[in-house]
């Protein structure tokens, strides 16, 4: 390893320490580059430690804050009994089905309103008004129309994830520089080519943030619905465990919800990186 390591300066100020840490971890070929990947873990590990200390020292009664060990064993029990996998599977199914529908419709609506001012005039105001009603405000109506089965959850997730996609695609397309479109015209692109080669790539960053944000929205809506009208899913598992004072099981569900949401977001991020391979690093940052 031929990288010369700078020594911490004698002043020992926080700033130089951070700079030193940065050189160790971020410079190409730096020996402790892997440390960087540990940074996002600092907070979770700290929280875990605090939790362990808090429960060991009985800062809160066990009925309010179960110990990490009891949550771990509840995780094991609920996994072995099939409770956790079943609920996880239901939640994931509702989410993905609803999200796929919401995303598909949202892209169509967003592109249509983005491209055509007439479509905008017809659809956009109504859509905007509807979007301001919280998803749970629709619950009583959907309960009457759809009952309490799978379709209720799928429709509400689709509805919650639809809105951000439409808004972002719309603003993304409207924000495409006219100069770019002129280039397309000079190259004699037809409408389909213009859309595929110029408008969609240029609108992609906005579109994609809508895609990611809508997953979050759909996910939050699903957990809320499960709490109110479901006998399955992680959200149900969470509230049910709370009302039975099985706080360890509740923590399993809470952690499961957090991890699942995080995992889904990371998957979208991975897709984004793949899709944006063609962009130059400078452009990607911009």
């Amino acid at each position: 390893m031929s990288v010369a390591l700078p020594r911490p300066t004698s002043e020992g100020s926080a700033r130089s320490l951070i700079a030193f840490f940065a050189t160790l971890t971020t410079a190409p070929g730096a020996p402790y580059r892997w440390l960087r990947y540990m940074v996002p873990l600092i907070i979770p590990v700290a929280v875990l430690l605090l939790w362990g200390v808090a429960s060991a020292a009985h800062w809160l009664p066990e009925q309010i804050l179960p110990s990490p060990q009891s949550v771990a064993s509840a995780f094991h029990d609920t996994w072995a009994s099939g409770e956790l996998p079943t609920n996880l599977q239901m939640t994931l199914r509702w989410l993905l089905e609803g999200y796929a529908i919401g995303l598909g419709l949202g892209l169509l609506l967003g592109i249509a309103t983005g491209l055509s001012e007439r479509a905008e005039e017809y659809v956009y105001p109504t859509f905007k008004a509807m979007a301001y009603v919280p998803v749970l405000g629709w619950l009583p109506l959907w309960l009457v129309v759809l009952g309490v089965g799978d379709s209720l959850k799928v429709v509400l997730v689709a509805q919650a994830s639809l809105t951000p996609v439409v808004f972002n695609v719309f603003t993304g397309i409207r924000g495409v520089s006219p100069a770019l479109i002129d280039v397309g015209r000079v190259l004699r692109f037809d409408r389909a080519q213009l859309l595929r080669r110029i408008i969609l790539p240029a609108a992609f960053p906005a579109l994609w943030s809508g895609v990611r944000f809508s997953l979050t929205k759909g996910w939050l809506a699903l957990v809320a619905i499960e709490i109110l009208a479901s006998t399955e899913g992680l959200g149900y598992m969470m509230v049910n465990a709370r009302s039975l004072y099985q706080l360890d099981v509740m923590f399993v569900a809470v952690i499961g919800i957090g991890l699942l949401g995080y995992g889904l977001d990371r998957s979208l991020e991975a897709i984004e990186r793949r899709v944006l391979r063609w962009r130059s690093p400078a452009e990607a940052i911009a």
Partner: protein
Amino acid sequence: MTVSPSPWIRHFLAVLLAGLILSGGAAVSAPAERPPAVIRFGGPGSSQQNQKMWGLLEVARAKGFLAQEFSADHTELQYIGFMTVPMVGEALASNSVDFAGQGELIALLARGSGTDTHMILPISRLENAYLVVPLNSPIHSLEDIRGKRIAYMRGAYIHIQTLRILTDHGLTERDIRPVNLEPASAATVLASGGIDGTFVGTYIALPMRDRKIGTIIYDTHSAPRETAQTGLITRQSFIDQHPKTTQRVVNALVRAARWASDPANRDELISLWVYGTDRSLAEAREDLGDGPLLHHTSPLIDEFIVSQYRNTQEHALAAGLLRKPVDIDHWIDRRFLDEALKEEQLTSFWPALDATGKLREAPATAKAAP
């Protein structure tokens, strides 16, 4: 499993104790135990009045039996209504209330989760459940619900009542298609045909019938074993530190029960139960019926109460709601009630019910009771 109080609570109690000793220094013939500066009562609150309590505890609050008992002590009585039922148990566990009204199931769940509580007297008895089905439903009796989509709130008191009703009619949860719904959504979904029926309490069932959303095809009026009860729950640590205060609270509740059991106070009793809630007088009157309210207002820990707790426990264990059994005989602490009945000379005032909810005495003697 013992939960030792955290250091700051100990510190707080020490300061409290010091304060009490200093302030009590003037009194020459100080009683053996001074009540705490604040006694906190909790229960599920009403949407309109957050001090509203339940059953006999509400009588003792609203008619001033508790205030009177502690009027000379400068003790503040706090009544805390909680938004949801689970919050009541969490408040008991975190030492935020001293006494709480809790239904059978939730009280056993809280005890089962390790909160060191005791049930010291029942404060409400014989709460009814109803089965409501859509208008023109093909369901005409309980036996018809086999294979149907029936809604009730899992893990709530109505869940245990549902299990009791099913058992009494030779059914189990597996014979129906249970749907977990909170009562307001159940009413909506019932109206649109999304479910075939719902088990609910009085104050959901009667409005549903009156608004022509559904028909009541079953209720628990003639089946006491299918009704729900509420107990007054307190923590072991409070009993240990304030046995006299606990006794005085129970004394006041027994006096409240005596007042509530007087037929002359019937109208006032029902209206004070209804006041500040979403319920109507007509609904309460209909649900309570025309007969004497003696069995509703009895504070006795009779065979009926004990067997209801046992039955709740059996169902809760079988349904996986409760993870380990509670020693019910140890958990129910009769000392304070027995003493209160003696002090108030009411040992033979209320007729005891047997395990099935019937009078233990011959019917002839029961008639003599008010």
